[in-house]
């Protein structure tokens, strides 16, 4: 009887210790350092695009959103832009929007960039880094795939091929 008690006690204590260690290791090494985790609701934001239209993320409920953070100096961003541009009209018809968030560069630079590549999807500029902070974006490009319920499905850092983009757009079709 006493032996049984002791075993239960020891098991319980060891489990508590194991849980504490496991939690620490897990949060330190296996969770995304981004403030926005996969499965959570994407933080709402309002930004103005080059044409002066306001875009509020929550207005896109019911549609999938391909949210791309980029900068004009970032070569990997530049590489994937034409693919996004090519796929944009196709998937727009199917209820997936592409929204590109520039990380606070001068409007002039962004406009020239958009002109150069003939970009048709809306490009908004995060002048005060507010959205960048809210999404805790580190390296560029970073793309958040948001489904019709506003939930983050996947976070992609680094450049994508056309096939990648197509697959990702496909995955958030409403």
């Amino acid at each position, binding site marked *: 009887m006493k032996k049984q008690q002791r*075993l239960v006690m020891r098991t319980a204590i060891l489990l508590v210790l194991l849980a504490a260690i496991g939690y620490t290791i897990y949060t330190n090494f296996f969770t995304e350092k981004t403030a926005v985790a996969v499965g959570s609701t994407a933080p709402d934001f309002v*930004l103005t695009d080059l044409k002066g239209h306001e875009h509020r993320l929550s207005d896109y409920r019911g549609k999938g959103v391909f949210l791309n953070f980029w900068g004009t100096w970032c070569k990997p961003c530049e590489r994937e832009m034409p693919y996004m541009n090519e796929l944009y009209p196709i998937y727009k018809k199917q209820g997936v929007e592409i929204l590109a968030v520039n990380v606070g560069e001068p409007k002039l630079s962004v406009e020239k960039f958009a002109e150069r590549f003939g970009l048709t999807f809306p490009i908004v500029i995060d002048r005060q880094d*507010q959205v960048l902070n809210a999404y805790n974006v580190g390296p560029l490009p970073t793309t958040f795939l948001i489904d019709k319920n506003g939930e983050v499905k996947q976070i992609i850092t680094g450049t994508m091929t056309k096939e990648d983009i197509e697959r990702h757009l496909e995955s958030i079709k409403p």
Partner: protein
Amino acid sequence: MEHVKCECGHVNPHGTAFCESCGKPLADLGEKLILDMRYEGSARRSQTYKKTMIDQIWAFFSSVKVGVALIVITLIASAIGTIFPQQMYIPPNVDPAEYYKQQYGWAGKLYYELGFNNLYGSWWYILLIALIGVSLVICSLDRVVPLYRALKRQGVKRHPRFLERQRLFGVSHVSDLDKTMAVLKERLAARRYHVREEDGHLLAEKGRFSRWGPYVNHIGLIIFLIGAMLRSVPGMYIDRVMWIPEGETKEIPGTNGRYFLKSEKFIFETYEKGKDNEVFNAAIDRVGNGMIAKNYQTNVVLYKRVGPVIPGAKPKLEKVKEYPIRVNEPLEFDHYALYQVDFRLNEPKAMSFQLADKQSGKTFGTVTVDLYDPKESYNLGHGYRVELLSYFPDFEFDEDGNPSTKSRVPNNPAFVFKMYAPDRPKGETSFVAIQQTIEPFGNNKYKMAFAGLQTRNVSGLTVRRDFTLWILGVGGAIFMIGLIQGMYWNHRRIWVQRVNGELWVAAHTNKNWFGLKNELRRLLDGTGVMMPADQLENDKKAGQGGQVHGHGTA
């Protein structure tokens, strides 16, 4: 696992060295003259039961040897981590793999490959610390419970073989046993001993609580470790960097968009001869006038956002306060603290150019380009106009030889202007960078002449919020209390017994035998009772004889 019944009737757990109640040695002591009093002879449970997996794991962590080994490994690893700089201290724009190899040769390469470049945040280092924590908990539990039991159950009357095997032991013949006992009892009580009497025998004890010192100390350490662990819980600990140029208002990172900061001015002051107190003159002469930093300061205005927080929307701001942030004088608000940690002086903010006729040098007006948000078109009047076709804040030629920008920071701004004049209605194109002008379409009549640079200072601030600090403080305080408790008090026990008409006196302490002997001498002075002999010293002043007690923090 049968229990062992002593002749005094007390039932002891298996593995007990001597009876918990009367102290009669249960195991064969052989030639050993003095009892090993460590843990009161109680059976550390992990040493006696090794049945299931759980028991084996328990036994592993219960071992002090394992605990010490873990600490030594951690110490060695920590020391190795200081040989070369950690990755956070190397220049941020280099590849660490290359850097370590280049700077420190093969040793650096090995250092990097073994992951010592990021030692204190590596999973195995954190695991080591965690294992020390586990060892701490189990070691303590495994010892404090039996020790508590043994001290609680100790009997007043002890077996003669227990008494004669104490380090301090003496036999006396006194004329009036009852009277001597009464005198001793009174004197012991006067010396703040807790005296228990049973069948005419005495047990006097004081400072037992000092025995709990090491365990209190361990509790403090464990609380400290828990505090450190909580830092990885979201929201408990924030440590972010914020760069803010003079004149700008920015969101403070880590505040979820609730606070904004405006920098009014960054001030950098140095010690200067003639302006500062004369006592500084010697130092100023040695280092150079204006070379010693005196003050780093950012004058800021703190704003709180009112209304709902929607990132990106123009915030409605309410002024909270103005404050000069200086080194070690952070701006504190709502558990946050903003520290002055870095700065960049004279960062380009705007550049001015004059539209000029190359030959005559005549100018037709000034164009000022905001380097953070340039306008596209600049009308100078009288038919003179300049358009900014392209802007490269951090100019370089890319792999294909095209002008491009390295970053969004205007470190090396370059522009493509189109200049219109009444006599050049189609415009002339000019590429202007620092110290460099290119005319891609042949000789121009006009040029953009550099006319000035506006700069501003940028402050580097650290945003800190730490809800674990008080836990670390409590842990540290408990740690110290335990240490003091174990260090400055001694657990002293004196047994006085009548054995066959003789008076037997034995005494034990967990430390400071010198003090105990002095106390005994004063106690027994004039009573006719012999001062007990130090059997350990008499025994050829030999080594330790098993009297080492665990007071470490392991």
